[in-house]
């Protein structure tokens, strides 16, 4: 079904993506809990292994790369909890994905100011 939903620059988070990304999203969901965030920071590899991340997911986490994380089945709402560990917000994420600096990304939004 996913194939029918192609929108440029957009990945619809549907069943096939959710299935692929389940372990990764579950790991990110766990970051609601401070103790888990700290455990992750203490030993990232062990934490990823505990959640059964596949190599693609593990690499995407290691690279802190949002596009890779999305490719690996991540959902942006859960990924935001991962980004939050490093103090990154949705504008940092937007900048990284669009290959801009954060300033340029924010400026592009400000251009549309009402």
């Amino acid at each position, binding site marked *: 079904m996913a194939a029918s939903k192609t929108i440029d*620059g957009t*990945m*619809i988070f549907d069943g096939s993506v959710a299935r692929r990304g389940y372990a990764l999203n579950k790991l990110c969901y766990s970051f609601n809990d401070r103790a888990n965030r700290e455990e992750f920071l203490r030993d990232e590899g062990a934490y990823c292994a505990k959640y059964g991340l596949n190599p693609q997911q593990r690499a995407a986490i290691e690279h802190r790369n949002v596009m890779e994380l999305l490719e690996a089945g991540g959902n942006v709402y859960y990924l935001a*909890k991962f980004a939050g560990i490093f103090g990154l*917000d949705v504008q940092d994420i937007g900048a990284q994905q669009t290959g801009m600096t954060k300033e340029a990304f924010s400026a*592009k939004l400000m251009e549309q100011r009402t």
Partner: protein
Amino acid sequence: MAHIIGGVGTTHVPSIGGAIAKGKQTDEYWRPFFDMFPPVRGWLGRSKPDIAVVIYNDHGLNFFLDKMPTFAVGAAAEYRNADEGWGLPVVRSFAGDPEFSWHLIESLVADEFDIVSCQEMLVDHAFVVPMQLLYPDVDPTGAGAGWPVRVVPISVNTVQHPIPSAARCYKFGKAIGRAIRSYQQDANVLIMGTGGLSHQLEGKRAGFINKDFDRLCLDRLVDDPAALTGYSSEELVELAGSQGVELLNWLVMRGALGEHVSPVSRSYHVPISNTASAVLALAAA
């Protein structure tokens, strides 16, 4: 008898909570946004809601993909906010109204809506930020329920496709309206729909905003909400952005208000964070 005073649609992005926590309401960036709210608050002050039914989407605080509801209805005596992982202050809890909640649940199930009933439910920024915007005089991090309304959180899946269609959401709103109007106890009820308007957080199209579509949605929410039910979920993603589908929460809200409404206040401001922000207050006819 319970009476629906009207509805409020508002943006709910987490950075608003951050701005409130840091007292940035009058900063140059934030002022145009926070300036949209006084007229809404004036109307609430006059119409004095006792209960707020808040239609929102959980962003991964109370629900995960192991059990992902299409529609979930709170039935707790108290709803707590909690750490979402990125450092927003946890706000004080909200008093529920279990008797009213169970009346809604009974009515919705009788109306063939297959809801999840939630006797415990954590509420995230999508619930909390709008409450802070409507009630800025409540110290958000104080103890206990200082909020002037009892609440019923209703969460809509706008996260994982298949999301409910616009048509189903509008019908769900109508059923919520019927449920409220059939409640035998006296109560003034406010319906809130939170999220949107156009925005997209992920992918190459991150930062996407669509002012024309947003303005069309605001127009139709006032005068012809049924017109919005023709869009498929994919069309909504394309027109409003991946996260702009939170518009569905507004459509549920609008459905509950009945056929005709009088606009109390309408405003629109781009950008707030990555989002086109909007506030719409509608008095039920």
